[in-house]
C-alpha cells in the first residue's frame, strides 16, 4: 500500500471503506506530514487535536455509505468554520471565530469528512501568488521560494505536498485554476450558482465561486458532487439538476466538439505555453474530439473589465470590516479616526489598492464611464461564449500565460501580477465552469496546466473531457519533498 498521504482521495475512501486503514490512521498520517511541512506555511490555523478526536469518533461508529467517510480535509481559510478561527488571510479578521459554518464546508462534514485545518490564502482572496496574506508567503512544494499561485495558494501547496488528500478553494478570477496549474494539480471552478456562497468571506459577489482541488479528475468529480448544492440562504444559488459527477464520469468524448479561441494567442506568450496548448489539442484529438477554431472577440477587454467589476464589489463587501462589531480594532480619537486607523492597519496594501480602485470606479461622475461600461462589456464577453457554444461543446485554452514564478518576483508590479489571470478571468465574468488540469512541464520542470471551459451547468462534460485527456497526458508531478529535512 502506498504511503497514506500519497494516496488519492479515491484510494483513501476505498481503503477506509474496506477497513484497510482507519480514519484515525489516515488523519494522523496527514497531520504527521503537515507537522513536518511547516516550512511551506500552508496552514494558518490547524485543528489537529480536534481532527484526531473526530476521527476516533468516526471509527467508533463508522458510516461507510457517506461519500467522504472519515476523510481528513484541510480547507481554504476563506470558508467560515464554526468555532474555528477564520481569517481570510487578513489581520482584520485575525481574531475572528465564526459561530456558523459555510454551506460548502457543512456539505463536506455531512458526508463524513473531518477538518484538518485552515489553509493560507491571499488576503481576502486578492492576489495570484499568496504573497498578500497577512500570515506570510506560502512555499510551493515544486521548488524552494516558488509561489504556489493564488489566491488559493495554501490549498494548492497543501494538496501538491500531500498534506491533505483534496481541498477546496474559491475562484473569483482564477484563484483555483491558476494555483492548480502552478502546482501540477486539478482545480475546478464550477458554474456561478452551483456552490453556495453562504458563509464564504466575500470578495466579489458576482464572481466568487467555491470549487474542488485534487490530485486527479476523478477526485475532483467526487468532491464537486459533495459541495455543489442548491441553498436558499444564497439568493444567487441556482436550483438546477445536479449530476452524480463521479458516477457519471466517462472517458468517452468521441465526437465532442472542442473550440480553440484564436484570441487566446496573446502577445508575448512564452513558446512553451504555445507548445503545451498544441500538445493539448493533439491529445484531445487522440481522445476522439473534434477541434474547431472559434473566436471570442472581446477577450482582450476581459482583464480591464474584471479589474473594474471585482474591486467595485470588493470595496463595498469589505466595508463591514470597520472595527465596530468584530475583528481587529484600532483605537481612535473618534469614530472616523477609529475607522481610518482600523482599516489602514487591518488591511494589507493590495486590499487597500483594490478598495481604492473600487471606490473610484463607483464614484458619482465615474460610474458610467467605468462600472456601467464594464457591465456592458461583461455582457459582450458572455455573448461571445454563447455564440461559440452554438458551435462547440467546450473550449480548450492554457490555464495561465506562464509557469510559476519566484516569491517576490512580481510583488511590486501589480499589473504584471494581474496578467496572470488573463485566461481565467473571462470564465468568471461569463459565470461558466472551467477546469485546469496539469498537462506538462516547462524548461525548469515547473508544471503547466490546460483549461477546459464548459457551458453553464455542464460540469459533467468538462470533467469527462479532462478525465479522458488526463489518461493520455499521463502527467507526473516532480516533487522531491525538498522542505522535509
Amino acid at each position, binding site marked *: 500500500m502506498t504511503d497514506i498521504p500519497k494516496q488519492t482521495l479515491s484510494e483513501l475512501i476505498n481503503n477506509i471503506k474496506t477497513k484497510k486503514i482507519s480514519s484515525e490512521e489516515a488523519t494522523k498520517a496527514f497531520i504527521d506530514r503537515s507537522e513536518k511541512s511547516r516550512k511551506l506555511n500552508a496552514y494558518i490555523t490547524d485543528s489537529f487535536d480536534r481532527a484526531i478526536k473526530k476521527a476516533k469518533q468516526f471509527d467508533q461508529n463508522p458510516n461507510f455509505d457517506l461519500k467522504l467517510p472519515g476523510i481528513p480535509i484541510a480547507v481554504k481559510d476563506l470558508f*467560515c468554520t464554526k468555532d474555528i478561527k477564520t481569517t481570510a488571510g487578513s489581520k482584520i479578521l485575525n481574531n475572528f471565530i465564526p459561530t456558523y459554518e459555510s454551506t460548502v464546508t457543512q456539505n463536506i462534514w455531512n458526508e463524513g469528512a473531518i477538518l484538518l485545518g485552515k489553509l493560507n490564502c491571499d488576503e481576502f482572496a486578492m492576489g495570484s501568488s499568496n504573497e498578500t496574506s497577512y500570515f506570510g508567503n506560502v512555499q510551493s512544494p515544486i521548488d524552494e521560494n516558488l509561489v504556489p499561485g493564488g489566491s488559493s495558494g495554501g490549498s494548492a501547496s497543501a494538496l501538491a505536498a500531500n498534506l491533505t488528500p483534496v481541498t477546496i478553494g474559491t475562484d473569483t478570477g482564477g484563484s483555483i485554476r491558476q494555483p492548480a496549474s502552478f502546482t501540477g494539480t486539478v482545480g475546478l471552478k464550477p458554474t456561478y450558482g452551483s456552490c453556495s456562497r453562504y458563509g464564504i468571506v466575500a470578495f466579489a*459577489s458576482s464572481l466568487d465561486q467555491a470549487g474542488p482541488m485534487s490530485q486527479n479528475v476523478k477526485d475532483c468529480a467526487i468532491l464537486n458532487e459533495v459541495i455543489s448544492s442548491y441553498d436558499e440562504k444564497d439568493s444567487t444559488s441556482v436550483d438546477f439538476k445536479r449530476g452524480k459527477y463521479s458516477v457519471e464520469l466517462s472517458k468517452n468524448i468521441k465526437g465532442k466538439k472542442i473550440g480553440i479561441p484564436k484570441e487566446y494567442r496573446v502577445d508575448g506568450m512564452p513558446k512553451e505555453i504555445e507548445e503545451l496548448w498544441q500538445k493539448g489539442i493533439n491529445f484531445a484529438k487522440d481522445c476522439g474530439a473534434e477541434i474547431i477554431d472559434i473566436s471570442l472577440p472581446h477577450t482582450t477587454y476581459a482583464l480591464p473589465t474584471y479589474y473594474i467589476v471585482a474591486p467595485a464589489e470588493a470595496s463595498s463587501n469589505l466595508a463591514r470590516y*470597520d472595527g465596530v462589531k468584530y475583528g481587529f480594532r484600532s483605537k481612535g480619537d473618534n469614530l472616523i479616526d477609529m475607522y481610518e486607523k482600523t482599516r489602514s492597519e487591518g488591511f494589507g496594501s493590495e486590499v487597500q489598492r483594490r478598495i481604492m480602485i473600487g471606490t473610484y470606479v463607483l464614484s458619482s461622475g465615474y460610474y458610467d464611464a467605468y*462600472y456601467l461600461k464594464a457591465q456592458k462589456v461583461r455582457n459582450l464577453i458572455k455573448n461571445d461564449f454563447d455564440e461559440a457554444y452554438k458551435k462547440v461543446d467546450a473550449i480548450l485554452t492554457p490555464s495561465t500565460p506562464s509557469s510559476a514564478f519566484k516569491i517576490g518576483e512580481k510583488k511590486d508590479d501589480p499589473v504584471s501580477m494581474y496578467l496572470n489571470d488573463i485566461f481565467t478571468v473571462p470564465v468568471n465574468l461569463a459565470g461558466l465552469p472551467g477546469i485546469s488540469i496539469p498537462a506538462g512541464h516547462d524548461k525548469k520542470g515547473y508544471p503547466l496546466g490546460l483549461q477546459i471551459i464548459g457551458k453553464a451547468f455542464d460540469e459533467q462534460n468538462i470533467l469527462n473531457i479532462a478525465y479522458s485527456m488526463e489518461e493520455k497526458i499521463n502527467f507526473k508531478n516532480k516533487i522531491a519533498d525538498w522542505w522535509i529535512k
Partner: protein
Amino acid sequence: MSKNKSEYLINRKDNQYEVVIGLEVHAQVTSDSKLFSTSSTKFGAEPNTQVSLVDAAFPGMLPVINEFCVKQAIKTGIGLNAKINKRSVFDRKNYFYADLPQGYQISQFKDPIVGEGKVILDMPEGQKEVGIERLHLEQDAGKSIHDIDPDNTLVDLNRSGVALMEIVSKPDLRSPDEVSAYIKKLRSIMRYLGTCDGNMQEGSLRADVNVSVRLKGSKDFGTRCEIKNVNSIKFMQSAIDYEANRQVDLIEEGKIIDQETRLFDTKKNETRSMRSKEDAHDYRYFPDPDLLPLEVSDEFIEKLKSDIPELPDDKKKRFINEFKLSPYEATILVSDIEIAKYFEQVVAKMGKNRDIKLAVNWITGELFALLNSKNLEISQSPISAKNLSILINLIKNGTISGKIAKTVFEHMIDGDQDPQKIVQEKGLKQQSDPKALEALIDKIINDNREKAIEYKNGKEKLFGFFVGQAMKASGGKANPQLINEILKKKL
C-alpha cells in the same frame, strides 16, 4: 391678500412668496420579520436581542428577500394608484456609520418596485391631487445611543434590516396644512391596507421634508433645502414654517440659498444646517450583486389587487351614496379604518329602522368626546358598536329621549353595559302615554292659570315655560314631542 383664505403665502414688502414642498416618507412595513432576514421586528425589545448574523453583517452572510415585505410594498403601491414595476433592482447605498453594520444600506435606486401614482387630499376648499414619484423598499439602520455611557456611543441593532417603504411625493404640496393632510391620508391608506401601522411615536412613520420658495406665479423652482427625519406632523408644520420664512428672508436680503441638508431643532423650533451640498455623501450606488433583480408576474400583482380592501376614497363615495352622508361627515368617518369599521358595525346592528344621521351624530359627538377625554383609540372604545347601536335605536323608537340617552351613555361607559338594562333598572323609559301626560299637563295649566291666560293673549314665549314645567314634573322622561302636541291643544 389672496382670494383663497387657506392659501399659504409669505408676504414681504411688495412680494408674495409661495412655498413648494415635497416629502420623502419613510414608512415601516408591517411585517413580523425583517426585509432580508428572519429576525423579529417587534418594537420595544431589549437592545440587540433581535439581531441575526445577517443583520449584524457577519462575514459571508447573505441577504434573502422577505416575500411578505414585497407584497406589502406592492399593495401600498396599488393603494397609491401607482404603477407596479414588474422588475425592480436592489442597490447598495454605501456609507460608513457605526449603526450601519454592512457599511451599506440595501435600497432601490434606479428601478424602484413602485412608480408614479397619486393621492387625493380633502382640503376645506376642495380636493387636491398630490403626485407620487415612486415607492421603494429599503433596510432601516440600527440606532446609535449617545446618552447612556459618558465616553462611548452604544449601538442597538434591533432595527437594523427592518423593512421600510420610502414614498417620494412630487413637489406638489404648498402649505403646512396640505402636508398634514397628505401625511394623514398616506397613513390612512396604509392602515386600511395593513401595510404600515403609521405609529409616529414608535418611529414607524417619519419624513424628510424638501422645502423651497418662489415668487407667487413663478414657474421655476427655487433652491431647496432638505429637512431630515422629522417624526411628527406638528414638527413638520413648524419646520416648514420656519424654513420657508428663513429662505424668504435670505432672498429679500439679496442673499443666496445654499442647497443643503438641515435638521429641525424641536426645542428651539428652528432648522439648522447639517451639511452642505459639497459635503454630501457620494453613496456609490450600484446593484447589489448578492441579490437578483426582483421580478413579479402579472398574476402575482393581480392576486394582490384582488386582496385590496375598500380604501378611504371609495368608502367615502359609498358612504355618501348609500347612507346619504355629507362629504364632511363621510371624510371624518373614513379617515381612520377603525372609525369606519365601528361606524359600519353600528349601522349594521341598527337593523331595518335605522337612523344613520343619528348614528353619525352620536359617533362624532358623544363617542369622540369620550375617547378624546380618555385619550383612547376607537379600537379601545369602552362602548361597543353593538351597545351604541341599541342606544341609538332606543332614541329612534321613542323609548328614551336624546337627553335621557346622554345619561344612559354615561352609565354604559362602566363595563360596556346594555343600554336596555340601564333604562329598565333606572326607570328611565320615556313617558309616552297620552292620557298620563294629559293629566300631568292639566295639573300644570291649573297651577299656572295666570300664565296660561297671558299665553292666550299673545305672549307666545311662555310656551317654553310650560314645556319645561311638564318635563320637570315627569322627571325628564316625558316624550317631548307629545308634550308639545298636548300643550298646543290644551292651551
